[in-house]
């Protein structure tokens, strides 16, 4: 399979690994039996489901009985959060952060209309949390704390285990949206404070529409999707067998490649970032550069707007992102960058490059070659330049008092 573009938008989605396609194909064509059936034809398929469950469990350092297959990250987050609330009906408080994925934020907003109170923890200019703020928010009434492992836009990684220790001390359930972290950071649920963790297949070179929810043994769980008794009653519906076989294979490959891929991605990402910063004036890296995913860099280019940059990159067959893919159909500047309090000069012109194990040096070279010209061209068009500082300042002021 050939890519005809330079794909640096891997936090949005990834290329399906050819080995993954190969693994899933027979379960579309030949082995179409229902894993719940009593005959051997179905039994073969049930075996494939079991293997996939083990593969996913291995990637997470979990037990296979702790894995529930879902349709992806959003379903996993919804299931985990609702389950945690249903299991403790007497508690009415939730803690999350301002920079979560919409899968969590939108649900929390809805829960607020249903009588729950939600604390949205703030982040500093590097996108990091203040754990004192968490401590202050935690009460005996807190049912659930839902915090992402790593941010999809900036790559900032939160100190999850330290957070978990504080959450557990207060007796709340700890749910972690690890969609961006799985496959990029080594995880081990065995020695973890995490109660529930969500991952998504299409971020680790499996297809879209499949994911998994880890539920620590002993955590009370109420299913979101009910019907037949599949997956030990924790997620009804006939399993998406080709999808979960693919997820299993992808998990196996992640485990195999993680160490070496991580080292390469860090090198490529840093080279890209450093060269951009040295060649282009007035730009800066957004997020916590010390606690960050190996594959992500988010750079704010002052005085110009992100979509315009993206379209120019697109002309050179380079795919990047100006925010999270889920909200790029909207006009809103990224809620993550806004929560970090970035100035508007940078906010609208921020671009995320996210790499993967297929990224090549030549692809990085190409970005380095074309980006400075694009930025210069758009800045030449922009009214906000040094000589127009007064107008700009006036606008920034209007904003700060808002």
């Amino acid at each position, binding site marked *: 399979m050939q890519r005809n573009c330079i794909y640096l938008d891997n936090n949005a989605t990834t290329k399906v690994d050819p080995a993954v396609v190969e693994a899933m194909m027979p379960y579309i064509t030949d082995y179409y039996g229902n894993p719940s059936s009593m005959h051997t034809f179905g039994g073969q398929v049930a075996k494939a489901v079991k293997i996939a469950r083990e593969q996913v469990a291995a990637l997470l350092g979990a037990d296979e009985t702790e894995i529930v297959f879902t349709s992806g990250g959003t379903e996993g987050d919804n299931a985990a959060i609702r389950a945690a609330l249903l299991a403790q009906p007497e508690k009415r408080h939730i803690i999350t952060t301002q920079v979560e994925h919409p899968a969590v934020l939108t649900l929390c*907003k809805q829960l607020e209309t249903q009588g729950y109170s939600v604390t949205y923890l703030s982040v500093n200019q590097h996108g990091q949390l203040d754990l004192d703020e968490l401590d202050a928010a935690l009460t005996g009434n807190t049912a659930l704390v839902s915090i992402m492992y790593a941010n999809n836009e900036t790559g900032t990684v939160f100190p999850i285990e330290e957070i978990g220790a504080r959450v557990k001390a207060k007796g709340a359930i700890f749910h972690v949206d690890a969609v961006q972290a799985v496959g990029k950071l080594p995880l081990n649920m065995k020695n973890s404070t995490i109660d529930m963790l969500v991952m998504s297949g299409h971020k680790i070179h499996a297809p879209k529409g499949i994911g998994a929810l880890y539920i620590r043994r002993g955590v009370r769980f109420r299913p979101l999707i009910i019907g037949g008794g599949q997956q030990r009653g924790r997620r009804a519906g006939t399993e998406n067998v080709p999808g979960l076989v693919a997820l299993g294979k992808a998990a196996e490959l992640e485990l195999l490649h993680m160490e070496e891929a991580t080292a390469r991605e860090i090198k490529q990402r840093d080279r890209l970032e450093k060269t951009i910063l040295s060649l282009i004036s007035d730009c800066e890296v957004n997020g916590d550069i010390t606690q960050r995913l190996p594959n992500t860099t988010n750079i704010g280019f002052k*005085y*110009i*707007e*992100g*979509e*315009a940059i993206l*379209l*120019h990159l697109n*002309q050179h067959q380079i795919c990047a992102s100006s925010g999270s893919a889920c*909200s*790029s159909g*909207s*006009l*809103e*500047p990224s*809620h993550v960058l806004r929560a970090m309090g970035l100035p*508007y*000069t940078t906010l*609208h012109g921020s671009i995320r490059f996210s790499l993967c194990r297929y990224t090549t040096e030549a692809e990085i070279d190409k970005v380095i070659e074309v980006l400075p010209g694009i930025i210069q061209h758009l800045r*030449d*068009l*922009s*009214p*906000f330049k040094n000589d*127009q500082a007064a*107008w*700009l300042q006036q*606008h*920034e002021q*209007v*904003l700060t*008092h*808002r």
Partner: protein
Amino acid sequence: MWEYTDKVLELFYNPKNQGVLEDKGESGVKITTGEVGSIACGDALRLHLKVDVDTDKIVDARFQTFGCTSAIASSEALVELVKGKTLDEALEVTNKEIAAYLGGLPEAKIHCSVMGQEALEAAIYNYRGIPLDVHEEDDEGALVCTCFGISESRIRRVVKENNLTRAEDVINYIKAGGGCGSCLATIDDIIVSIQREVTTSQASNNNPGQLAVKALTPVQKIALIQKVLDEEVRPVLIADGGDVELYDVDGDIIKVKLQGACGSCSSSFATLKIAIEARLRDRISPSIVVEAV
């Protein structure tokens, strides 16, 4: 990814009219500038026009735009549309024409063409020394759309001025509601409350002309005055060997140039009052005063 027409992409990738027009002291021409938008909203436009003082024609135009693909393409389209027009003709250019020139814009990007029209108005008003309505009240009052920092007072003003009836229109005009969408319900409520106010005041006030003018933007008002003059006043005057030309609009004071037989006619004062002022009062607002220059 947005669906853009080929025209949008062509103008975006190869803009020909970007830049600044500098005042080089050339005789017979003047440079004027109009600025709208802000870095907060994510788009801003500074439009420069070179005007031939005698003919009132736009002889050159340039733009500087901070914004997305459609903002840049709309600026280019605007400049193409107004070059060679007189200022009065240019004032008639609507955001719809800009969008049409581009072969259409995605609905959520219509505000880019609105920005073009507003910058044009700002530049021309600047040239004519007419103060632009600064809506200071826009910064006051409750913040409704936190995504774009837009207050209730601004939404109310835009809804009233443009007779908007749906939250989607508000998105298209000023973006409010076009982000996370969580303010859409409030915007709907605001629209409903304005509609209610209008119905009540219509019921208690049977002077619809006055109501209509309240909802007009300066550009719409000028356009309406021009229309009344062209369609209802000038034919009568021309039949009498005279004519009239709109010279300026300053709030409710409308300045006109009487021409031909009317200019020298001893009854020109009467023409002004009876034929023109009465008509405009009837059609637009009872507080209008017409003066000859």
